[in-house]
């Protein structure tokens, strides 16, 4: 190619005019609207995204084929230089999280001694082999050999990841790692823990020339949102039944974590482990569970005991709740106050414009007598739309047109006004404030505790709060969770129009028609049959044992038609998978005699009917042969939970891989009317590629 053409090409690239986000959103929405028009004739009854999406499986297949091809050695050797270039790109992507993710996770694992330590105390000789050994079962089995080591060193060695890191540091990759550390790619935590394990000294000096590929790597890293805040509760540890037989938690029907994870994976990187709340991943999906027989009891609890997909030595106990479906047209008119964050940061296409669009979708699905008001907050709070019946669509739509972002956030001011409006609307009934924000809570009530109390107090007067999260970058997940949990509401994270459809349209009935409040679950495990147990997820929902019977302790709500899923992984007495040794001095004391030698545990549920102040109790024994739930549903829930564990880098997963999760989910896809399960299966593929 001549110099002139090269110059022209370079100039064209230089002029690669940045995409204007608002124009892009406009165009995408125009496309989708047009799509709905064009496809109206196909299926009149189907709502825009309610049609099952079948694209996931062919896509998935493509990805899998590609991956198999590029990882097979003959293919690598036989390629032309063109293929090699393509491959180099892929491998960069592959390597990036491999280098980083394990490093970033060293600290929590190491500090979480009680899970990590019994699992995998890796001895020095094995460390040399590094990553290769990770998948080797022999690592786990060769464990309990070591004599006590000094605490700091012990913690560092507890995780095979550290071993892998160490192994890699010794290899030629050491320089790369060091460079990354220097540029701040490796989190402070990880560097600290490296330092703690004495590895930092062995790092090469800073004077290594950065190569172009590293510049690219750096840029990619920079693209990752860094301002998002998660509270990162430590993973539920393994419990020994003899020591702590009772497990208590509040149900959770939030879905924010799933959308966040999906959004990260679609952007090509793994979400930070803290962002993954497994119970929210699992509860994102609808399951077919046994329905309540009559409306006396608002929901039906079911229990299934099955094999654990990732560990042949343990059992999976699946606890499911199916709420009855209330007739939507019979519900009392809803009073909704939208409190919309119009601060400058909401300007992005995936925030306010998406919210307005979502709002339109929802409007079409409310009852004519429902009333809506809109309050904005941006520097000063304002009532943009006075309480208006949904039948007056024109007025509501007109006020939506006028929403625009700009100004600084003063959340609480708007919050107080919204609650004021909601209380007026509620009268004797109830109302719901729906807060839409990117989480930038620059609140007037500065003290989070005070804010929490404000919301909780209003909840008792019949005004509830739900939180819709938008955008990424300064998304404050922890605050949103706290607010929604205290407001008897849901926290959802909306990243696409399709997600808005799910949250605001499909789930609207459930949110607007609560059928049971303060639902708590307590399981008492039987030490005679169950040696150890672990609740999967629900870390932020843990309750004290005594809270179960205390009706003043707030817990989760179930809406019309909601399903709730919880999973325990249990290890039976005598199983080879038992992690802990018997105590030398305790075995002398005989196990307590019981008449329930066949039972694994006892499930108790407490709930309040809407408006009631005292709770009802449902009890049922968990026996080893119970299979109330269709095995397909258990398999899918297990696939989702297992995938979540993989994202959290839980070492207990052993050599169970993304492929296993995918196969399991695929086998349990079922009818999948809305295509959510298909989407999930595709996400596993993306996670694999982003590894």
């Amino acid at each position, binding site marked *: 190619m001549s110099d002139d053409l090269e110059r022209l090409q370079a100039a064209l690239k230089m002029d690669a*005019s940045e995409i204007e986000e608002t124009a892009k959103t406009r165009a995408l929405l125009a496309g989708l609207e047009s799509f709905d028009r064009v496809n109206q004739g196909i299926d009149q009854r*189907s709502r825009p995204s309610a049609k099952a999406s079948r694209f996931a499986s062919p896509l998935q297949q493509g990805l899998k084929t590609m991956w198999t091809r590029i990882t097979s050695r003959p293919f690598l050797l036989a390629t032309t230089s063109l293929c090699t270039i393509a491959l180099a790109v892929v491998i960069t992507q592959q390597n990036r999280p491999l280098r980083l993710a394990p490093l970033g996770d060293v600290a929590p694992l190491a500090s979480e001694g009680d899970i990590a330590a019994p699992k995998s105390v890796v001895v020095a000789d094995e460390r040399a082999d590094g990553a290769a050994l990770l998948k080797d079962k022999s690592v786990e089995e060769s464990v309990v050999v070591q004599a006590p080591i000094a605490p700091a060193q012990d913690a560092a060695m507890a995780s095979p990841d550290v071993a892998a890191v160490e192994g890699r540091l010794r290899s030629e990759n050491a320089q790369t790692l060091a460079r990354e550390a220097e540029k701040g790619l490796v989190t402070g935590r990880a560097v600290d823990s490296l330092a703690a394990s004495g590895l930092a000294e062995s790092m090469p000096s800073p004077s290594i020339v950065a190569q172009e590929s590293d510049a690219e790597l750096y840029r990619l890293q920079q693209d990752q949102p860094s301002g998002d805040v998660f509270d990162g509760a430590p993973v539920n540890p393994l419990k020994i039944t003899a020591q702590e037989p009772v497990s208590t938690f509040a149900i959770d029907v939030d879905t924010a974590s799933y959308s966040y994870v999906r959004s990260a994976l679609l952007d090509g990187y793994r979400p930070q482990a803290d962002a993954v709340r497994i119970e929210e991943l699992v509860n994102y999906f609808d399951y077919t569970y046994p329905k309540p027989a009559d409306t006396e009891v608002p929901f039906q609890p079911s229990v299934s005991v099955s094999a654990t997909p990732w560990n042949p030595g343990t059992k999976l106990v699946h606890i499911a709740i199916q709420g009855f479906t209330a007739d939507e047209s019979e519900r009392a008119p809803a009073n909704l106050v939208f409190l919309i964050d119009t601060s400058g940061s909401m300007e992005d296409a995936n925030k306010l414009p998406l919210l307005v669009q979502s709002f339109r979708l929802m409007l079409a699905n409310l009852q004519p007598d429902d009333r809506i008001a809109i309050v904005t907050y941006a520097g000063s709070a304002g009532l943009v739309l006075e309480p208006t019946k949904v039948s007056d669509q024109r007025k509501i739509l007109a006020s939506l047109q006028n929403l625009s972002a700009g100004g600084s956030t003063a959340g609480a001011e708007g919050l107080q006004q919204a609650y004021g409006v909601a209380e007026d609307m509620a009268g004797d009934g109830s109302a719901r404030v729906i807060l839409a924000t990117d989480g930038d809570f620059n609140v007037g009530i500065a003290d989070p505790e005070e804010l929490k109390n404000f919301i909780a107090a209003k909840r008792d007067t019949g005004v509830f709060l739900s939180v819709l999260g938008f955008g990424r970058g300064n998304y404050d997940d922890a605050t949103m969770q706290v607010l929604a949990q205290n407001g008897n509401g849901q926290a959802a994270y909306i990243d696409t129009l399709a997600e808005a459809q799910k949250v605001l349209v499909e789930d609207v009935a459930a949110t607007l028609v609560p059928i049971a409040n303060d639902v708590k679950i307590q399981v008492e495990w039987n030490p005679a049959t169950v040696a150890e147990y672990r609740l999967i997820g629900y870390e932020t929902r843990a309750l004290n044992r005594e809270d179960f019977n205390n009706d003043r302790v707030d817990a989760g709500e179930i809406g019309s038609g909601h399903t709730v899923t919880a999973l325990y992984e249990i290890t039976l007495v005598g199983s080879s998978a038992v992690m802990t040794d018997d105590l030398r001095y305790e075995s002398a004391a005989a196990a307590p005699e019981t008449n329930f030698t066949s039972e694994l545990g006892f499930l108790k549920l407490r709930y309040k009917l809407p408006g009631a102040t005292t709770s009802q109790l449902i009890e049922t024994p968990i026996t080893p042969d119970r299979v109330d739930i269709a095995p397909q549903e258990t398999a899918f829930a297990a696939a989702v939970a297992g995938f979540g564990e993989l994202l959290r880098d839980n070492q207990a997963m052993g050599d169970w891989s993304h492929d296993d999760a995918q196969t399991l989910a695929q086998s349990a896809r079922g009818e999948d009317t809305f295509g959510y399960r298909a989407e999930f299966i595709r996400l596993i593929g993306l996670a694999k590629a982003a590894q």
Partner: protein
Amino acid sequence: MDDNDTNLAIEAAKGDRRAFERLLTRHYDRIYRVAYRVIGNRAEAQDVAQEVCAALPAKLKGFRGDAAFSTWLYRVVLNAGRDQLRRKAAQQRITSDWGNVQVLHRETDVQRMAELDWLNRALTRLSDELRETVALVLGEEMSHALAGQVLGLSEGTISWRMSEVRKALKLMAAEEARFA
């Protein structure tokens, strides 16, 4: 990747909204980029890209999957770009801003500024056909054969067009040297 696009496109044509949403999000940048390079005006290119997005659902019904989706999409975009240029020709030529004039004024890097200015002069000089070819071959880094497929021309014609581009640039350089 093309394979995936093709499947998405076929599902979208059947009414799968998610497939369509994925497809649009994935390709918007490309649609806009090509439109911008052919038309030379940001606002107009945005409008054209939006038109393309809105027209795709109907057009997809005619997508048979016998060409790669991206090839097919480039054709759709180029056609929309031509329509726009025709409309514009009927009125009067709007000032182009390849190299983005507003950005140019703020540009502090003299070398960069000179290059973008040169780009603007070069593209203005090329005929619509040559500019389309440049957008595909240099902008989208397509082989001559592939660009030929998009434009419905032989590989040889594309190579000939590129040599015309080279000639035009040489001529421009010669002229500018004379005035300098």
